[in-house]
């Protein structure tokens, strides 16, 4: 019984720590894929995520199998339902392309994603983790 106050204090502290938002607790992220876009020569697998982290909305397309020549992402965010339009990776071999809304307090509504296969350089159909 002598340790009870200590235990209570420890339990209270643990509860407070659990309630505090940690650096990794950046909000819900919706993920989709991997989606496969292939022909007889190459296979491009890519995945897509969107969400809000550190008070900013983002959308990200990732080269899942390393077989995509290019990637594209598009973000729809609130407040106001704004659309970034398509944002495409540069000319280097990309690992991912990400678009972040610079507006503080923005939240992601939905995202769209595409990958380019490396043989004909054609874009995949548009994919989305949730309905646009």
């Amino acid at each position: 019984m002598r340790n009870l106050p200590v235990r209570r204090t420890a339990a209270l502290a643990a509860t407070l720590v659990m309630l505090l938002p940690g650096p990794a607790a950046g909000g819900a992220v919706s993920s989709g894929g991997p989606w496969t876009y292939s022909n007889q020569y190459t296979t491009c697998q890519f995945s897509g995520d969107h969400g809000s982290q550190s008070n900013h909305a983002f959308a990200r397309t990732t080269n899942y199998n390393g077989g995509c020549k290019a990637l594209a992402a598009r973000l729809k965010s609130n407040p106001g339902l704004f659309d970034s339009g398509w944002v495409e990776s540069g000319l280097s071999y990309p690992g991912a392309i990400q678009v972040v809304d610079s507006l503080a307090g923005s939240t992601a509504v939905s995202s769209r994603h595409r990958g380019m296969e490396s043989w004909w350089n054609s874009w995949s159909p548009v994919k989305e983790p949730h309905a646009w």
Partner: protein
Amino acid sequence: MTVAAGNPRLLLVGLVIFMALIGGCGSTVTPTPIVFKDPLPVDPGPDVGGLALQEQIFADGQVTFDEYERAYAAAVQCMRDEGFDVEGPLRYPDGYLVVEPGWDPKHWLSSRAHVGDDPNDRYGDVNARCQAQWSYAVGTVYRQQFQPSEADVQAWLERAWQCAREKGLQVSAPPTVDEAMTAVTFGCRPWEIA
């Protein structure tokens, strides 16, 4: 940047760009309020199409940021002509931050369209068409001069992962590209570190 005519890789890029432009729309553009630092050799005026504008921009074998911004402004105007409320061109750090390992986001312009709830996603079609007609080729060639090496990309990722660790974010072993990108959303700026 010099567009070397003898470089097969550049010629291939040019061919792809030309094919993309063939599918572009044929609408005209009106002058934008943007003031450009470097005027074109001969201003194409408001009534020429995207190919003419790009011929002007590519004429001296160089693409400057100013020319990229001019082409992007034409794309934005194209979207406005289609009835959309579009802000832009927006320079980093305004608008959207475009992040790719190894790259500096300042080489991307962005635009922000107020689209509302459009179930038909007409803006997606207009955005793609206007970019193809006016700004895609110029932006691609402009950014080519900043293409990072594999070492540059790796160094960029290492800085992002280190910053992630310092912020207490999860970094697995081996670390992933997604973790580096997440670090950026939490405020890491691996392109700014010398």
